């Protein structure tokens, strides 16, 4: 990365704080990215959040491997609808076992149950949890075919978080929902960023009246509340779209609505950097405009832009969840938290099937991890401002 005066001064300052000669050398030659990383590492809460986030991302990527069943109707347990979580145990009245097991649940219907199907636990019959079982085939990241799943049962099903009304395993769905959120967020952020880079870039690089007009439009668009607008657009998606197409369009709309804030940031970065003396110095020594943009301007703020992207990520995820929740976003069979919660407002679910809400915890952890990491990155990238806005 190009050494800029700004990072230089920063490095000198940091080195002065540290003092020793070798550290100073390291700081003088460190790239901006290394400096940010060095400062980020010092923040304990952000580091912990970063580790959690990494675990969540990994569990999203390996969701098919980690989840015992397919999250769609294909993997459903038709004999265990709206079933409570089944937690493996090591001991029961018949003694203990090193291998965790579950009791068999039988569905019975008799005169005592008013001829309704009722689940009964048979405490004498054990089913054992097994690891690295061959299950239904799946593809990791959509193209690596595999069949081995982390765990499963020797017979029957295991539902750590219970099942929903269709008998789908909520644990498997939760893991896949994390992956969906990450995907939607990434595509949305990418599109928003692409638009922001063009619009903010033009605005910031040219300045003057072009900047004025673009800023006016950006500000106007920014005043429109995003979710209602989003709803207005999403509602008119043709109902005959397939789940995949819907997924694509939702990400697209998220990106199209999310650009103004990012564009503003890009513009501000560009405007401040453009007026830095090192740019003037480069221009005076005969660098072409393209060279200045590529070798000086872009490197000087890519790190900041990455930070901005991380910060805007959770809002994309939140928007998707909210939309799917009200039925305007993703639809079954795609697993997403919003989709999974769609039916959770009914009193029936609230009173009887509270395990529907287990995924919420994961979701909050995911969003919080992103917010913490984003905050940590911002503090690390910009040590002079501790504005938490």
């Amino acid at each position, binding site marked *: 990365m190009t050494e800029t005066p700004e990072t230089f001064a920063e490095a000198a300052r940091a080195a*002065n*704080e*540290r*003092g*020793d000669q070798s550290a100073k050398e390291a700081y003088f030659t460190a790239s901006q990215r290394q400096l940010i990383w060095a400062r980020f590492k*010092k923040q304990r809460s952000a580091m912990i959040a970063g580790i959690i986030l990494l675990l969540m991302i990994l569990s999203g990527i390996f969701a098919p491997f980690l989840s015992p069943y397919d999250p769609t109707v294909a993997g459903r347990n038709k004999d265990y609808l709206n079933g409570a979580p089944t937690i493996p145990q090591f001991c029961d009245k018949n003694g203990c076992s090193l291998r965790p097991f579950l009791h068999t649940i039988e569905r019975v219907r008799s005169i005592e149950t008013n001829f309704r199907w009722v689940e009964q636990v048979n405490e004498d019959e054990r089913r054992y949890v097994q690891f690295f079982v061959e299950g239904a085939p799946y593809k990791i990241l959509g193209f690596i075919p595999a069949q081995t799943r982390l765990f499963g049962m020797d017979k029957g099903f295991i539902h750590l978080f219970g099942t929903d009304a269709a008998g789908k395993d909520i644990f498997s769905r939760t893991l896949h929902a994390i992956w969906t959120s990450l995907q939607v967020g990434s595509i949305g952020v990418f599109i928003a960023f692409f638009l922001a880079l063009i619009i903010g870039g033009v605005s910031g690089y040219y300045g003057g009246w072009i900047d004025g007009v673009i800023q006016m439009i950006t500000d106007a668009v920014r005043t429109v509340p995003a979710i209602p607008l989003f709803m207005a657009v999403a509602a008119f998606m043709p109902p005959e779209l397939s789940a995949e197409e819907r997924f694509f369009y939702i990400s697209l709309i998220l990106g199209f609505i999310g650009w103004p804030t990012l564009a503003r940031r890009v513009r501000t970065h560009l405007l401040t950097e453009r007026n830095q003396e090192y740019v003037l110095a480069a221009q005076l020594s005969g660098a072409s405009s393209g060279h200045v943009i590529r070798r000086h301007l872009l490197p000087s703020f890519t790190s900041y832009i990455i930070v901005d992207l991380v910060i805007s990520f959770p809002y994309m995820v939140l928007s998707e969840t909210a939309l799917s929740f009200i039925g305007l976003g993703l639809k079954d069979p795609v697993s997403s938290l919003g989709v999974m919660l769609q039916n959770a407002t009914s009193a029936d679910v609230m009173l009887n099937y509270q395990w529907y809400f287990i995924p919420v915890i994961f979701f909050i952890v995911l969003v919080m991890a992103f917010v913490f990491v984003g905050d940590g990155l911002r503090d690390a990238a910009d040590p002079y401002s501790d504005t938490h806005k």
Partner: protein
Amino acid sequence: MSALIEVENLTLSFRTDEGLVTAVEDVSFRLDRGEVMGLVGESGSGKSVTAKSLMHLNARNAVYAPGSRITLHTETGPLDVLSLRRTADLKVVRGGAISMIFQEPMASFAPAITIGKQMVEQLQLHSDMSKREARAISVEMLDRVGISDASRRFDQYAFELSGGMRQRAMIAMALSTKPALLIADEPTTALDVTIQAQVIDLMKDLVDEFRMGIIFITHDLGVVAQTCDRVNVMYLGRLIEEGPVREVIANPKHPYTQGLIAALPKLDDLDAPLTPVPGDIPSPLERPSGCVFHTRCSQIVGPECRADLPRDTRIDATHQVACHIYREVAE
């Protein structure tokens, strides 16, 4: 002459994420009434922290070592500044006995409050004047420091004044309560050279008029030579040389002071090369052992420079230095 303020063994550290960072170490000096003292050093040498300690004004994470003592001799008797805990009690010191002016006059006025209001507030805090009296005195003070159309300026905000004007207003405000001691923390650094001269002249006039002590914090030996009676040179939180201004400048004893003076451009020989003090100030986190200056010193006399703190050595009745070179001579 009677002492105005006495500083004894002032040691001050800041609690930070990296641990305790010592900013000032074992500093002792005394200032008499009507005396102008220069406090000279590079940035980070602890001169501003020392000055702020006189008003107990350092940040909340400051820790004073147990032996530290600052005694202010007021009209009602001696006052142990560091023992004052409550900010209400410190009022006697802050803005009462001691006033301070800062490097950036723009930033030291509250931006959304008129200059007059801030002046009146200070006057009313330290006396039982009515608003009208306070206003009259403030306008008079503004007039005294050479601000034309003072009664109009009184109702203006800092951003409406020019840089030199702001510093004049700052001086007017600082002097309005007739403090016994004025601390000027690099008051001219942020100003243009021509304005600098005006402000320094103004301060000199006012010193004569008000007969107060001044502590002049600066890194500019030229300013010190023009204004001060005595000078204290600080390096990395320690006082390393002290003496009358003329004596110290003409006959510097400490290698660091010698370096500082050699680094000044000489007007009578503009072709002479500038010789900066080699090396950088070490980080306060890693204070050198022994003499704090040994990492940059070109006149090391032996292993004691690295191992032992040099004691203060008297060169004559008024001039003293903390350096191993002179201890040998003395012994």
